[in-house]
């Protein structure tokens, strides 16, 4: 007969699964207005999602300088990315490179 996993192991597995689950993260909003990402710097945790809401009438992008992601954000619309790795990422708008921002991604258990 198969031995059951101890309760504590199950709990740890469940917690690990929750931390890795896309459902676990928060959504952090970064409005775009008059060609500015505001706030220009946000701190999030792995699994969180950053959502850009574009109030401008022109299209923008949020493009990671390291090439990890390239989010299209049409005028008057939103775009988002879920952060899967810890680290500090800088990003810019490909159409208007004078628009720049930074996302600090902390490990899931690291205090903000």
């Amino acid at each position, binding site marked *: 007969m198969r031995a059951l996993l101890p309760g504590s192991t199950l709990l740890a597995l469940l917690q690990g699964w929750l931390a890795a689950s896309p459902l676990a993260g928060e959504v952090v909003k970064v409005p775009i207005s*008059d*060609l500015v990402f505001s706030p220009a710097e946000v701190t999030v945790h792995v699994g969180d999602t950053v959502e850009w809401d574009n109030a*401008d*009438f*022109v*299209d923008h992008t949020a493009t990671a300088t390291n090439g990890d992601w390239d989010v299209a954000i049409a*005028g008057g619309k939103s775009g988002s990315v879920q952060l899967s790795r810890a680290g500090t990422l800088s990003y810019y*708008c*490909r*159409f*208007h*490179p*004078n*628009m720049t921002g930074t996302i600090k991604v902390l490990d899931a258990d690291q205090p903000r």
Partner: protein
Amino acid sequence: MHISYLGAAAALVLGAIAVQAQDKPSDPQIAHIAYTAGTLDIEAAQQALKKSKNKEVRGFAENMVKDHTAVNDQALALVKKLGVTPQDNATSKGLTKGAADRLSELGKLSGSNFDKAYVENEVAYHQTVNDALSKTLIPSANNAELKSFLETGLKIFQGHQQHAEHLAATFK
């Protein structure tokens, strides 16, 4: 060769704007200049889309068409709302003449020679327009909504200038 031509074109346009600067442009003239500057850059982009096979250059040109069309649509809606009728003037005429000369000059080039010249023109053109906006048009605008709209336009065009500068660096 097209570099010296560029300098001449920029000088012509700057000359026209400098003349205008002594005689402060009115809101109807400012609206006309801003709209004309956008239309001319759309025409330059359309030429690039016909001639260029370079992915980055085409992407830039597509964005110029999209952004300047969006800005001009907003500009038209604003002047309508404000009851301002855009008025032709020496600066608009200078910009138009410079752009026509540039289209014809660029029309003679092809391949990477065209790409390089188009992108360098875009740097010079946006620089000229941005200078005009920040030094003459924005300070001269009387209507607060027009002024604020021009300020947003300036930020968009400064973005275009930077984008063009990055592209130009890849042709060096």
